[in-house]
């Protein structure tokens, strides 16, 4: 906790080979098949048992997911989480391979100026809702999404306000308003 300077690097805690053989075996197979879709830095086996984190090129996410669905029967989809990294936006796709009991996370970084990547909701129908949510909270656009609509935010929320970004300044002053007491106007 003393080296808070190089945040991006020390966030990843790769695990030693002993004790994590099953995860390393899976990771090696994956790197062997999908060499050019994965990015080496950011792909590792975590120290916590049964976790793998994989960094993926944004345009290649469909190939990766299709390959995993075919070869490893990765039908259990968990969620998509978005994250604001400063000059990039990150979307993490979390899956579980039930036979091997390993949880895999696919991460993709998209630049803030053009945050687009292809959608996977036709391969994984369960992802439809949650991709909408990431879109409206972070602004990451999934190209080809069948049913774009408002999920969590009210209908009159302006389309360019993305609340979960770090630099979002509350234009309506809502976060401060809900802390005050007494009657509030304009509600």
């Amino acid at each position, binding site marked *: 906790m003393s080296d808070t300077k190089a945040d991006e690097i020390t966030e990843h805690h790769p695990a030693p080979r002993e004790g994590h053989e099953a995860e390393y075996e899976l990771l090696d197979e994956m790197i062997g098949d999908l060499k050019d879709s994965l990015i080496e830095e950011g792909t590792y086996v975590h120290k916590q048992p049964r976790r793998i984190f994989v960094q993926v090129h944004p345009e290649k996410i469909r190939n990766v997911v299709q390959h995993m669905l075919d070869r490893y029967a990765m039908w259990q989809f968990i969620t998509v989480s978005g994250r604001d990294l400063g000059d990039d936006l990150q979307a993490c796709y979390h899956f579980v391979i039930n036979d091997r009991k390993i949880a895999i996370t696919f991460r993709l970084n998209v630049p803030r100026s053009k945050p687009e990547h292809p959608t996977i909701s036709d391969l994984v129908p369960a992802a439809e809702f949650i991709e909408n949510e990431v879109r409206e909270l972070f602004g990451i656009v999934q190209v080809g999404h069948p049913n774009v609509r408002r999920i*969590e*935010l*009210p209908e009159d929320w302006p389309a360019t306000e993305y*609340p979960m970004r770090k630099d979002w300044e*509350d234009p309506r002053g*809502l*976060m*401060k*308003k*809900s*802390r*005050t*007491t007494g*009657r*509030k106007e304009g*509600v």
Partner: protein
Amino acid sequence: MGFFQKLVNKARVKSPFVFHFNSGSCNGCDIEIIAALMPRIDIERFGMKLVGSPRHADIMLVTGPVSHQIAPRLKRIYDQMAEPKFVVAVGSCACSGGAFRGGYATLGGVDQVIPVSAYIPGCAPKPSAIAYGAYKLLEHLSEMWGLVESTPIEKVPIREYKRKADFLPHNCDTDDMEPPPDSVIQELFAPVGDESKNRPVLSEDDPTMRKRKELKKDE
């Protein structure tokens, strides 16, 4: 107030119909409201019945920090209730926003949208607390409508002084009270056996206590 009006008011107080509305809560308070209808704390014996439509209801129980999406619906349902209507905010979230104050999606309490008659704090308030809160509201209503004379309250005599705290200055009504004899005071203020028994139950060699002492040494 004529006889008919008195009868109607008595019916309103003795058998209020309750409507429950969830404005985005975590459901803890809702489960406790339903548990108040269950055989352990049966508020139906007070005449309170849960109805499914706000048009049939006298009292509305609202839970949850009001989220932006649900605020117009809450207002609409409040408008659909018939006069006289009362709103009870159940739980900390309905009173003031609870744990969700400071969020961009909550308004911070039911009284931002509709006028509230009673607040029941707690997270979640126990079913007996909800029953007590509803009972307090009814007591207040019956006083307001002048129904109190019909049910006289039995006056309870002042209890005898048996506690140390009764001798503190702010508790004494010095005008019509004579001080007790010295022997009584001595008996009350004498040490009662082993005072250390009143301490909290952390033993000396509990590791938490040890670490706390170590930290104190560090500072």
